């Protein structure tokens, strides 16, 4: 009995040592964790239904504005230059430079949905702006562009998205929050907002939107956070 137990224990210890070598938390995209992450990416793509809408939250669920966190990576609230305009490029028929006024002329969409942060908190705000899919149509985005890259003037913060999530009806280039023009702390003059991604995918302080044939990582993604990050 004792011998059998020891053998079994040795086996278990050996197996877990092997497992640990393949699980390096500082490089979660390598080894066993990386292999599982690639599996998880396929699972997330499969679970994503482009027609599924997040429920609209009631007014009573609105987070008091002072409690809605404002994140940016610059040491100070980033401020847009006076000459700010959004560049839309990549695989598009009509590369464009759009001001907020240009974007306001496109159909307006309103959302009041729950925000899910990778840290585990949730919050609710109302957002308005133009759907990314309407901008894609306006510039003639090529169907071969399976990815959309969003870049900012917040110290190079960026993120790349799968096209189906970017084209979702609840993915906006938002120029307003809670009925007001977008505050500087929340990404003025223009930010990405979506009901179907974790918060870190929603790039604030936008400068560029590029329709690309390949994914291009992002600020947190390059440090080890998952790339798809759908909710």
């Amino acid at each position, binding site marked *: 009995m004792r011998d059998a137990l020891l053998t079994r224990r040795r086996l278990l210890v050996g197996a877990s040592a092997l497992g640990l070598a393949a*699980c390096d*938390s*500082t490089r*979660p*995209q390598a080894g*066993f*964790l*990386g292999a*599982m*992450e690639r*599996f*998880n990416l396929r*699972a997330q793509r499969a*679970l*994503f*239904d482009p027609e*599924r809408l*997040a*429920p609209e939250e009631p007014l009573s*669920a609105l*987070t*008091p504005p*002072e*409690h*809605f*966190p404002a994140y940016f990576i610059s040491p100070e609230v980033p401020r847009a230059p006076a000459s700010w305009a959004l560049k839309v490029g990549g695989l598009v028929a009509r590369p464009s430079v759009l001001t907020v006024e240009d974007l306001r002329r496109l159909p307006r969409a309103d959302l009041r949905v*729950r925000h*899910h*942060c*990778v*840290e*585990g*908190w*949730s*919050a*609710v705000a109302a957002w308005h702006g133009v759907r990314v899919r309407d901008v894609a149509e306006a510039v003639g985005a090529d169907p071969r562009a399976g990815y959309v890259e969003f870049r900012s003037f917040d110290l190079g913060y960026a993120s790349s998205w799968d096209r189906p999530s970017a084209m979702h009806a609840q993915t906006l280039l938002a120029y307003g929050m809670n009925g007001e023009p977008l505050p500087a702390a929340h990404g003025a003059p223009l930010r990405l907002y979506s*009901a*179907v991604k974790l918060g870190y995918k929603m790039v604030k302080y936008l400068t560029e939107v590029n329709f690309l044939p390949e994914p291009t990582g992002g600020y*947190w993604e390059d*440090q*080890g*956070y*998952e790339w798809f990050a*759908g*909710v």
Partner: protein
Amino acid sequence: MAGSGLQILAAYPKLGPRGQPFAWYPFQDVTPPAWARLGGWLAGARHWHFAFAWLLVLNGAVYGFYLLLSGEWRRRVFLPRRDARNALQTLAFYLRLRHEPPAQGLYNGLQRLAYSGALLLGLLAVLSGLVLYKPVQLRGLTALFGGYDTARAVHLGVLSLFVLFTLGHVLLVALHPRALVEMVTGGEKPRA
């Protein structure tokens, strides 16, 4: 799963949505101790958690099929009509309110209750975890749990109960070391 889950909790150690923390939760802002955490940082812990979550689901599915197909569920699962009386009598015996243990087969009613409770906890852990993983894609399940933040509380509650379940068994082994063998092997089956 527990260690990486606590590392994820450490990123926002509160329950309830922003600005409306759940008043009943006694550990708001309490970061789980470092020895209980796994994954080093939020992204590392999330990779651990999602990697092993798939293995947990696989394991649970294999086990569930075994339980059903082998007919073993009849012996292990708590069936109120059959087991409730025996469970109460066993509890009374353990509490010294009764001198003799009630007659039992391989498992008594209280064991079946605990065993079924653990299965239910496993199911709750996976379902509430699915809500946290895909609150929008699985919006029906999210609504069933009463929302994302409630599911997060349930997910942590399930962990607490699993910890109690484990501590209970460790205590039992400390008091009755021979029980360990039976816990691992499932006890000797009655001879036919």
